[in-house]
């Protein structure tokens, strides 16, 4: 019989090893899945993990890694603060959309003026859009004790409707021949979140993501607020005893994740995406949840996890076009990663023992 035995101390080794083992297990079972779909599993896995980094067209894919990874990391860092404290913001996708709408809206209000202050104002607008959208579940939770999971999630769909509305109305390009969507910010220098070095994929969002990682690391390890966040997640009653104000913590954590998600949306709309359209959002806000957990809610882990996730996105796209894998299979593959991670996570706190027959 297999027995789970609680470890006296959480295992450091397994805490580091589970993400790696989870990735390997996903490769293996993903291969089985692709084989069942009639594809060569080794080729498929190679396409996803090898092609973007070292393949023939890697000069094109490598910058894409930064472009896809930056919003994931930025959002996941914000989410991880709340997740550490047991505050579940599931609506980063909505905050991401709102950041993009407000950020783009602030910029377009100045069109066609060329001025240095437009882009900084757009950054502030993006942060504000995400923040205000996250404040709705936060204030409802503090004031009325509503469940932030449900409220933040449902606000994603509200945000999507807003996105459709502004694409067709408020922010619609007057010179767009009736097509839905805003002006293209890429062709307007003052608002364009351009690459800092041509061909590198490095834009202001990437820089902001790195700053956020450092900021989160210092906060969690060196600051009282970070200690209170961790304490609240581990032992809520002890946190209250220590003097943590739960309402303030909820407002901070949801606010911070909203700001970062909003910034991610803003950098995306001003850079890689270029314009507000009905289908502007591609699920970064949800994928970031996986990234946050895959990275063990640890800032450095999240950077690595964001990289892996971006890789599966890009590699998945290549596999779709080159091998004709259905996109659903790629999504299952990404889901497997979270599944294995959560399952293997058990080993951090428990050890598996094969129980010998007990002496009668």
């Amino acid at each position, binding site marked *: 019989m297999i027995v789970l035995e609680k470890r006296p*101390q959480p295992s450091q080794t397994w805490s580091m090893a589970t993400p790696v083992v989870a990735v390997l297990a996903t490769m293996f079972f993903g291969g089985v899945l692709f084989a069942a779909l009639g594809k060569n599993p080794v080729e498929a896995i190679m396409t996803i993990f090898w092609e973007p980094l070292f393949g023939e067209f890697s000069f094109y894919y490598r910058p894409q890694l930064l472009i896809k990874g930056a919003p994931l990391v930025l959002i996941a860092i914000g989410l991880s603060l709340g997740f550490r404290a047991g505050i579940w913001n599931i609506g980063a996708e909505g905050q991401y959309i709102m950041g993009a709408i407000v950020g783009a809206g602030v910029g377009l209000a100045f069109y066609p003026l060329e001025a240095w202050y437009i882009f900084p104002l757009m950054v502030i607008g993006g942060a504000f859009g995400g923040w205000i959208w996250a404040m709705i579940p936060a204030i409802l939770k503090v004031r009325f004790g509503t469940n932030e999971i449900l409220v933040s999630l449902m606000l994603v769909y509200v945000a999507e409707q807003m996105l459709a509305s502004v694409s067709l109305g408020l922010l619609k390009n007057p010179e767009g021949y009736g097509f839905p969507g805003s002006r293209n910010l890429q062709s307007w220098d003052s608002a364009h979140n351009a690459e800092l070095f041509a061909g590198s994929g490095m834009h202001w969002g990437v820089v902001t993501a790195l700053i956020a990682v450092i900021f989160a690391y210092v906060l969690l390890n060196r600051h009282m607020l970070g*200690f209170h966040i961790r304490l609240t997640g581990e*032992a809520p*009653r*002890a946190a*209250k*005893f220590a003097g943590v104000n739960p309402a303030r913590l909820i407002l901070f954590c949801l606010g911070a994740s909203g700001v970062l998600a909003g910034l991610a949306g803003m950098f995306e709309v001003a850079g890689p995406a270029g314009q507000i359209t009905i289908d502007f959002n591609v699920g970064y806000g949800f994928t970031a949840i996986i990234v946050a957990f895959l990275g063990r809610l640890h800032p450095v882990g999240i950077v690595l996890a964001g990289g892996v996730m971006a890789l599966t996105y890009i590699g998945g796209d290549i596999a779709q076009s080159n091998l004709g894998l259905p996109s659903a299979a790629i999504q299952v593959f990404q889901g497997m990663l979270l599944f294995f991670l959560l399952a293997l996570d058990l080993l951090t706190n428990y050890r598996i023992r094969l129980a010998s027959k*007990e002496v009668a």
Partner: protein
Amino acid sequence: MTTPLLSLQGLTKAYPGVVANDTVSFDIGQGEVHALLGENGAGKSTLVKMIYGLVKPDSGKMVLNGQPFAPAEPRAARADGIAMVFQHFSLFDALNVAENIALGMENPPKMGDLAARIREVSETYGLPLDPYRTVGDLSAGERQRVEIIRCLLQDPKLLIMDEPTSVLTPQEVDILFETLQKLRSEGTSILYISHKLEEIRTLCDHATILRLGKNVGECIPAETSARDMAEMMVGSTLQTPERGGRDFGEVALDISGLSVPSPSEFGTALRNLHLTVRRGEVLGVGGVAGNGQDELLGVLSGEITTAPDAVKMNGQPIGKLGPTARRKLGLLSAPEERLGHAAAPDMSLTENALLTGSVREGLESNGFLKWGETQSFAERIIEEFDVRTPGPDNAARSLSGGNLQKFVIGREVLQNPDVLVVNQPTWGVDAAAAASIRQAILDLAAKGTAVVCISQDLDELMEISDSFAALNEGRLSAPRETTGLTVDEIGLMMGGAHGMEVAHV
């Protein structure tokens, strides 16, 4: 005596790293009240769990009425006439008495029949209980009666009771003893687990003493002094805490007219509390658990805020202040629940030292943490309070209960509080550690700290407190000087017997 009812022969059970029971043998006679004595961690619980079929012994055997007895699960043990009243009740607050009892039965009869049986058994044994009352409204003594009646309905041959009096007032204890004696006179054997020696001397016919998993001796309690039994339990001479002068200074803590609604559905509301504690004084607050102890600690620690004037420290209203502000003023506290309330289980001892020490020990500047200083603070606690652990990096949950308790008390004591509030400071702690914790509290009082000690252990309160008050259903009796208080008076302060009557023997 003829053949014993139950004979234990060389029972051994080992867990990783510890031998809980090492070849324990003894007999329980027919119609005998047999005491099982021992400190926390001596292996009493493991032993009764083996008898009740919750744990399988590694080796050794049991013989019940001449037949080999090896219950695979509690149901099998119950079928053979073994019943057990646990220390912690397993009752559903929201259901009534009869529903709770029916839940534990294999084939529950109709509710009406069951209620009649409950009435009949409860009258016979002097444990009156209304089968239709909601358990959430019952006192701890009444809840215990539900558990006892649940057992009696099975007509047990052996009734195991795990520390049954820890939740009872002295009067309730008397009534329980009448019930147990009636059961004995009917031929039921009782295995009685306790570390309260006087109780065992009045009630039990025979005692087996366990120390570190071994049977270290047997005795006839009525013929052995409590001190001798205690020394058999501990294995060494006991040190009684001492204290210096008893000069009281100004009033340090003043609660007047404090009323607080219950923080949760089955919590207790505090009703019109009054108390004052002077510098250097130890106020003992007794009472059965669940009568407002947690709430009183919350009100003092700042987890529950009240009207500003209801709680005053050194004349300053502090009722509205949170825990951090109160710590700044010198009011420190140590809650009862060590894991999850006083300490975060998965965090290291260093992090747990920061939990309450940040303000007074200066472990942060502008919100940034000084880990180096925090670690030395944790090391100081570990050293001065003899906390047994490899080091401050270990998680709180890896410590034994007694060691963690020493850490929690030490953490507050070393911060030199003006007022210290502790709830159950020695609960689940072995005798030597308990003595050192009590000594630390007394030393602090001798230096002029006002101490409020909430505890269910009356012996402890008699030993360390200068004045005594009891909590009963959220009301606090008027504090009285401890010297000269009799057990009867204490019992009445604790609310008497909650309307119980003595068994009709």
